């Protein structure tokens, strides 16, 4: 789609639309600037036009250069592999904008984030409680992502108000932040009447480490190491999205060999995590043999990663401009041989699970997230696909995946079983893809190019194993980062979990949780 088509499309729905500027910054990125009073209606028009949820909504502090804050809202035109970015300027003394939350639910979490980090008020958002800067420890009036934030000023502390469910026989079960297992911290508050859960409120932010602020001022090439630490089990997806954003800005195109290698590593990451989740589902219903079996497969994959890249979690593999580590003939053979035995083991694991009637009975219809709810919430990635929404960035954006005839898997029922089936299908597809990509590797060809930096901004994205990982990157002319906005799929998908568990019993919560398997650190940043 070219700019004029998008404009015509918006005008069709919203007649009074008028753009201040329209640019096609990159082939996959159209940027439209509007005046603040048209922001809401323009976003609604795009939401309708592409039936896209809000993938990103974030602010930037550009007061030093232009005297204003900017708000950017990113929609996905998946079918045509494009991102549409609506932006507005907000003067410092009128720090507010029209909230989208009541019309597009997926915007609401982002708006709360903007409010707590920048102090820009989304007018009309019914819920402005803080997400990450907990009231108990962070005084009012401190906005850490503003450029002039230096030191924490003392001020009033407060409390967090949970949603209350009232009525006869309703009681609350608070869980966390420290859980019984070896897992990240988060607080879950169940409201229960009898057995079924009638409300689940998740309060997160416990692992907030101020990642976005830490990116600022770092040199682009070094900052990729920080991207790897945003979510440790998706470190390759994060470094890849970051690298792509930086490469877009510097205008280099990376060698085809590096693209294949990155795809191989991305699929390896998907595989070890999917098999881990399958094992996790088994352990959460007390079925220990398959979970041990799955952990053996996971270990085999981690050791494979280690022997290919010298890192079990694929850290320090990616760089801006390509990859550090190629696969020579010898390593390629190790990869293909290991995959063969892993595939056999995986097939056995699935047989064990499918032949257990009690296991299948436990996961069937448990934790169902209906398609309509999923669409309304704007959940993304694997969780969306399990509820029947065909959304996979690999399908729409990637040339090499198209070459390899990537087949997107979807399920309809949105329950734990659907998510299990989807993980199984994706695991098998990953093996096939790696074999295809490995066949295209040529030993000795160049796998990275040197990036030259010029100032600019761009959106980097990739489909990690949980879903789309998005990086908005702004760098200055010398390659230092001015702003980096990170969106891990967990951020949007946590609310999906709150709806999926409704009507289920508390003992099934771990199972539902594991079938989502979201990242605490990725969501909390």
């Amino acid at each position, binding site marked *: 789609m070219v700019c004029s088509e998008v404009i015509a499309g918006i005008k069709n729905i919203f007649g009074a639309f008028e753009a201040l500027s329209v640019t096609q910054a990159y082939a996959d990125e159209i940027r439209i600037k509007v005046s603040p009073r048209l922001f809401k209606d323009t976003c609604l028009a795009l939401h309708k036009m592409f039936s896209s949820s809000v993938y990103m909504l974030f602010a930037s502090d550009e007061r030093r250069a232009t005297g204003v804050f900017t708000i950017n809202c990113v929609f996905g035109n998946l079918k045509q592999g494009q991102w549409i970015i609506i932006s507005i300027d907000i003067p410092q003394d009128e720090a507010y904008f029209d909230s989208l939350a009541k019309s597009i639910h997926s915007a609401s979490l982002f708006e709360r984030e903007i409010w707590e980090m920048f102090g820009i008020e989304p007018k009309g958002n019914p819920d402005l409680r803080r997400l*990450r*800067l*907990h009231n*108990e*420890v*962070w005084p009012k009036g401190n906005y*850490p992502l503003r450029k002039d*934030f230096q030191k*924490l000023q003392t001020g009033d502390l407060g409390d967090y108000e949970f949603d209350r469910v009232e009525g006869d026989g309703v009681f609350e079960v608070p869980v966390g*932040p*420290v859980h*019984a*297992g*070896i*897992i*990240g*911290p988060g607080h879950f508050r169940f409201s229960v009447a009898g057995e079924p859960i009638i409300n689940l409120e998740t309060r997160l*932010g*416990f*692992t*907030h*480490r*101020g*990642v976005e*602020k*830490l990116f600022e001022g770092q040199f682009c090439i070094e900052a990729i*190491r*920080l991207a790897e*630490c*945003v*979510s*440790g*089990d998706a*470190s390759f997806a994060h470094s890849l999205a970051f690298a792509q954003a930086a490469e877009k800005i510097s205008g280099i195109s990376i060698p085809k060999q590096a693209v294949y290698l990155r795809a191989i590593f991305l699929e390896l990451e998907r595989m070890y995590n999917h098999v*881990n989740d399958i094992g996790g589902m088994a352990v959460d219903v007390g079925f220990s*043999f398959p979970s*041990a*079996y799955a*952990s*053996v497969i*996971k*270990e085999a994959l*981690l050791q494979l990663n280690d022997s290919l890249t010298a890192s*079990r*979690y694929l*850290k320090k593999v990616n760089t801006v401009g390509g990859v550090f580590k190629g696969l020579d003939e010898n390593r390629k053979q190790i990869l293909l041989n290991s995959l063969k035995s892993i595939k056999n083991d995986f097939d*056995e694991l699935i*047989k*064990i699970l499918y*032949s257990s009637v009690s296991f299948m009975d436990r996961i069937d219809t448990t934790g169902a997230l209906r398609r309509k709810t999923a669409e309304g919430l704007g959940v993304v990635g694997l969780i969306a696909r399990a509820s029947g929404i065909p959304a996979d960035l690999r399908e729409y954006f990637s040339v090499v995946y198209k070459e390899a005839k990537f087949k997107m898997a979807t399920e309809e029922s949105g329950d734990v079983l659907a998510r299990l089936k989807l993980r199984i299908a994706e695991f098998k597809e990953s093996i096939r893809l790696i074999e295809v990509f490995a066949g295209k590797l040529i030993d000795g060809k160049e796998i990275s190019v040197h990036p030259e930096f010029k100032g600019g901004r761009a959106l980097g994205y990739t489909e990690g194993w949980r879903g789309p990982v998005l990086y908005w990157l702004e760098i200055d002319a010398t390659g230092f980062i001015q702003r980096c906005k990170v969106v891990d799929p967990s951020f949007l998908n946590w609310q999906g979990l709150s709806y999926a568990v409704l009507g289920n019993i508390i003992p099934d919560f771990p199972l539902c949780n594991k079938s989502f398997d979201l*990242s*605490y*650190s*990725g969501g909390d940043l």
Partner: protein
Amino acid sequence: MLQILKNRILKGILTRRIEPDSSRVIAEAGLSVRQAGSELRFLIRKKFGRSLHIRQVDTGSCGACESEIISASNPIYDLQRFGVNFVASPRHADALLVTGPVSKNMLIALNKTYEAMPEPKFVITCGDCALGCGPFKDSYYVCGAVKDILPVVLHIPGCPPSPLKIISSLTAFLKTS
């Protein structure tokens, strides 16, 4: 059931033989920890026999350390054979294993978890972030490293430390006299 039996027999025993490489681990950990280490060994022998129960707390890690700690209990590394178990409650724990830099939001939870543990108790840190906050050192939302908040007797280095490293660090203290 038949599937399970078949696979159990075909797979055989996967568990690796692991010798605790104590000298290397202690050399890497540095002198101050070595002194603490001898106390720790004495403590474990005297108070806990050969069984050590650990409660893990994540105070802001990226999740990779957790993944490796879980891997240390898989059939290949089988940490339990050395008498080390992970428990669900701090009330059952001898040691607290902390990962990640300490985020402001986790400070209270970390202190409460430590207070809930019965004496004698000690703290182990796992991963580079827990030792010096790693890439999160200058963050506005990080209170500091674990050692600034609780007395730490053993550190397991790495980003993340491999299961082998975790096991050899732990067993080095348990086995050597």
